[in-house]
């Protein structure tokens, strides 16, 4: 039974249920702290980074 109201934001609560390094957590973190930019653009940057990483693996794994 809580002694006081839990004032955590929904997003903070959500992040608690996601693994730190998961793509979901990385996208949400970027969305919440877009580093001065637009949240969706910040998430796209995370996705592009991941895409480049996978491309590099597919290319490098066979070269």
């Amino acid at each position, binding site marked *: *039974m809580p002694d006081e109201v*839990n004032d955590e934001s929904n997003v903070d609560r959500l992040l608690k249920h996601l693994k730190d390094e998961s793509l979901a957590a990385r996208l949400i973190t970027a969305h919440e702290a877009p580093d001065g930019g637009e949240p969706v653009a910040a998430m796209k940057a995370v996705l592009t980074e991941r*895409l480049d990483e996978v491309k590099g693996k597919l290319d490098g794994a*066979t070269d």
Partner: protein
Amino acid sequence: MAPRIRSLSVQGFRSYGLPAQTLNLPSDIAVVWGPNSKGKTSLAEAFEFLLTGRISRRELMASTQDEFADALRNAHIAPDAEVAVTSRITDADGNDHDVRRVLVNDYGKRQDCSSRLEIDGAEVAEDALEQLGIALSQPPLRAPVLAQHTLSYIFSVRPQDRSTYFKTLLDVLDLDELRNDIAGLADELKPPDDPLLAKFDTCIAIAVLKDTLGNIARTLPDLETFTARIADCAGALIESAGEEPPDNFDERLQAIERILAERRGKTFPVNEFDRQQLAGWTPPAEDVWARLGTYLAEREKVDEETRQLAALFDEALKIPAVAEIEAPVDCPLCGTDLSLTPDRVARIRQHVEDTRDFKTAETAARAALSQLSTSANSLAASVQGALPAYLKTTSARRRETGFTVTRIRELLGDRAVEFVDPWLSSLRPLARAAAACWRGAQSASAVVDQQSADLGTLDPEGLKGAFAGLAGLRDQYAGALDAYGEPAETLVAALNEVLDAQADTAGWQDFVDIARDIVGLRTALIDRAARASVAKELDTALKEIDRAKEKVLDDKFADHSGLIQKWWEKLRPEEPTFFSAVQPRKGARRTIDFKAGLSPNPDRSAPKVRDVIAVFSQSQLHCLGLALFLARSEHEGTGFIILDDPVLSGDEDYKVHFNATVLDELIKLPMQVIVLTQDHATWEDVETRYRHLGISTAQLFIETPAEGSIIENTSDTLLAKISRAKSLARGGHPDSRKECGIHLRDAGELFCKEMLVKDRRAKGEEAASFSDYDDKTLEWLCPRVDPLLVQDASHPGKLGAFRSTVNHACHDNEPPGTAAMVQACGEIHFLQKEYLPR
């Protein structure tokens, strides 16, 4: 700090008439007693109207909305009298504001009411209350006012509709929007519209290529292996055509193209569409025209006879006998004896010298004309070259080879209209432009040749105009070719598709195309595979977010269940039947269930869980409704609550817990609590329990219906103040005696003011008022009252002793002892009875 309501004035609203009645709320707890039908619920609704501009009772009783017509305006006041509720509110920053709600239009039949909200005298928008720190909840119960009809609301609505009450709890709209944003990222991962990949997918359907191409798409080998596998595929295609594949990769591709052309040609002469790129053509440079102009200028300088003899003279001077002449000799031209003298040869040399520039200009002019001729001819040739083959042959020849529009339509079948008509539309302008340009070039070439043959007819300006015209014709032709290109290529592709299908070579052309860009193909396949992989990760991420979102809701419900349980336990501690949880129904998140635990044991062990609606008594449901309201208020950070008869009469245990524990807990949150009750015992009990906090008390009564409900702020009367001070005086704790001192100071000040006003009025000063002495302290008041204490010489001394004790109690760290405080209470009470008897 949360906002606080410091007073509420009600004028012409519901049971309240004119003038305005004011409830003073200086303390964080207030209790108001009113028997039935004396204005208690109207007072609660006045709070609601002030904050929301309406009363929820009408909205909750949908079937009787018509009956609320003209319900807000007191029935007995004049039609033009203003109906308003005014409040002094201390905002979150500690600043006081006058908040006023004026009724503009009352409820009508099927018509909502309207009102005007003012803060500090200025009309404001509804959301201006937020700036004072007042956060309203969701409709229909927006204001923090609990009344009998709102208490039962949550149980009377369907489980599906209970979500409204818990909207802030259920509200994960921000997470929904976040999820949508993330789901929208899938568009970023769609493979680009790459023709290489489309052709690859066509090739993978070719039986002899399926395994190899499928394998490289899955394994994405290094470039060398990738190329080798494509070469294997080329070999497989050639073998499937019954030929031995060459060793060389390029030769294999050429062989495939040859086989394709042969097979297509057997069905239709598709190669008739072949054409070359239009060769580049630049109009003649300016120096061409300059040379022709120079020639004309030089020609002007030399007479006709000299021009005609110049060549003869030139040739004559090449004869050694003429060139080396020292004495007269016979003329080699006419044979006249000794007629050619050194003087005459010198004259011939002079003539030759005079025509040298002319001859140079003539040579340059001929070269320029030759350039013009070449330019015109090359343009004519390029016009022909860029035409498709079928346009360079006769219609008879086309029919002979089978190249007819009818045949093309047959081959394409239903798709003919789609491909043939655009092609034909572009073909006619092309043919016209080609003919015009070709004829222009031929004509220009002929004119140049004619002028070259007879320089006397040379017309540089005419030629310049002709070639400028050629440039325009060529531009038109190039435009027509551009317009023709796409429809023709689309038609050829469609035809090849049909021809390849008939020749069992479907997809071969696509294979040749992808095989000629192996690096591009491999890059595109890696890109597609990476996108598919990350898209899968994104899908997984969305599923994780969905699961996490459900857990967030579960967490929030668990937290909220905890809050409700907290208030339930304070109301009904240790009962074997208890509130267990509020939870969303599985599979229907917007459907809310309340669960009760039924334990056969005093320690609540082994409880059976049931729906509260089915098992709770009316009293228990009443308690749960109150617990829900208090939990919601606490959760939403409401600064104040108004409770209209929160305790069922006759539910004695519950009443004790509410008065003693719940109110105490609410004040500690801290939350301002205003309790309205019809139970006089509750009023007295609450007043006694929270006297040490300076509780505000009031009573409601009605003397005449026309006058309406009257509010008497009983805690402001002299006797009430003395009574409170007395009850605190005997408290052992120094804080109690200090609080007693504060009440005694208020009582003393009020006694003095009443004495002074009474005296002035006795002397005929009818306008004398308490407000004349606002801000006056005992130090100022007592010396002025002493002369009025005439019944006994000891009385001024009693007042002086009283003042001294009160000063010590209010200002010293250690207040006077119990005996001194009791004595002070007795002295002021004595003086009140002697001089101001009630």
